[in-house]
């Protein structure tokens, strides 16, 4: 082998190592601890509602967040996992790093990748403290032994492909900047874009399933379900109070009630929020950007 060829080979190997590291290296997370104080657990309970965890992870009957709900998408059917602290089938024994890696980076405890049916890209904007409080609440719940079905996906949908998918998604457009410093609207943005992950249903996706953030909240169809547009144009005839009232009771200004998946979101998520947080969501969705 000539020196030139050896050089090319070395450079190629080095480049592959760099790409491999870039795709698969575990991101760094803060070294925190999960509190078991009542205050943390109480805050965590509120955040579990605000984070929309219940709508997907709720098990049958009174079995807590033991999972099993089918999420039908264009890429196959995903089953929400058991997030009770059962050691064999749930998240029992998880530490702070595992919670931060899962919620903010979409990584499993063994270093693999979650599918983005789990909204970790929205949760990536969550504060570490909120993640720790969610962890405190989840770990304080009754463990339920429940094995959920395996995802039913196309053969090519490997978890490892998600490494590349995440990087591609990083390159796509970001949500429009908010032209305001109003703390109410910023709180609403955090609730809508991060905790409540409203865009997962209400923002259209491209062919690879990535959110088209330039059309944030423009309405979208996935599988058989359609989520309405919730941007200022779509809400022209809605006042802020109308929207906040809708988030409380699911009743539209014309007296009609919402049904389907949004009804469940109202029940487990938005109706459980404080009046201030519902007002913040209304202010955010009505804000021009």
């Amino acid at each position, binding site marked *: 082998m000539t020196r030139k060829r050896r050089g090319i080979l070395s450079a190629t190997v080095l480049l592959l190592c760099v790409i491999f590291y870039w795709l698969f290296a575990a991101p760094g997370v803060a070294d925190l601890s999960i509190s078991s104080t009542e205050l943390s657990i109480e805050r965590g309970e509120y955040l579990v509602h605000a984070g929309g965890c219940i709508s997907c992870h709720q098990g049958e009957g009174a079995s807590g967040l033991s999972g099993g709900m089918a999420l039908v998408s264009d890429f196959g059917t995903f089953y929400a996992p058991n997030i009770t602290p059962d050691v064999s089938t749930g998240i029992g024994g998880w530490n702070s790093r595992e919670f931060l890696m899962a919620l903010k980076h979409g990584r499993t405890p063994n270093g693999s990748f979650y599918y983005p049916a789990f909204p970790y890209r929205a949760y990536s904007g969550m504060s570490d403290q909120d993640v720790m409080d969610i962890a405190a609440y989840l770990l304080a719940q009754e463990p339920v032994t429940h094995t959920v079905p395996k995802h039913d996906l196309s053969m090519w949908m490997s978890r490892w492909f998600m490494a590349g998918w995440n990087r591609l998604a990083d390159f796509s457009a970001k949500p429009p900047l908010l032209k305001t410093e109003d703390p109410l609207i910023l709180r609403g943005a955090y609730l809508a874009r991060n905790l409540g992950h409203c865009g997962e249903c209400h923002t259209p996706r491209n062919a690879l399933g990535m959110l088209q953030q330039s059309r944030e909240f423009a309405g979208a169809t996935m599988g058989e379900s359609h989520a309405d547009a919730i941007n200022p144009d779509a809400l022209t005839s809605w006042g802020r109070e109308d929207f906040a*009232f809708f988030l*409380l*009771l*699911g*009743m539209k200004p014309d*007296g*009609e*009630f*919402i*049904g*389907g998946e949004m*009804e469940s979101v*109202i*029940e487990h998520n938005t*109706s459980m929020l404080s009046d201030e947080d519902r007002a913040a969501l209304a202010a955010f969705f009505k804000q021009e950007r």
Partner: protein
Amino acid sequence: MLKQIVGIGLVVISASGVISVSAQQAEPTPEELAAQAADTRQSLFKLLRYNLNMISGMARGTVAFDAAVAERNANRIAELAPMIPELFAADTRAYNIETEALPIIWDRMDEFTEKANNLVNAANTFAATARGGERNAILGGIRAFGGACGNCHETFRED
């Protein structure tokens, strides 16, 4: 001549009377029956809405809270709700009538009946809550009952 004219007039009047009586006695066409069924259904939903609107007005703050009115209306709703599956037993999908009821109601009658029964249960729960007289519980009960309405409309009613 006059007698003849009067005679002919009587014959015409009697004949038209016979026609009118026989028209009144004629069986309604299937199309007319379907229109009547749709009309009855729509009247039921108007009544349900009338009773619910008063309570949701209390939740919105446009009407002063009145526990007695909430209880009365919730009881009425619980009485009326079981009529939904009853009235939809008449299959009207083959007729050209004015309705927002989608034909899939009768294609997927089991699913429709399940959703209608969920609504009946939600109405009974709502009425029981209203009998308790507690303001926040009553206003919160609207969400669960309204959600049962919305769940059915989502699939089975024209947008």
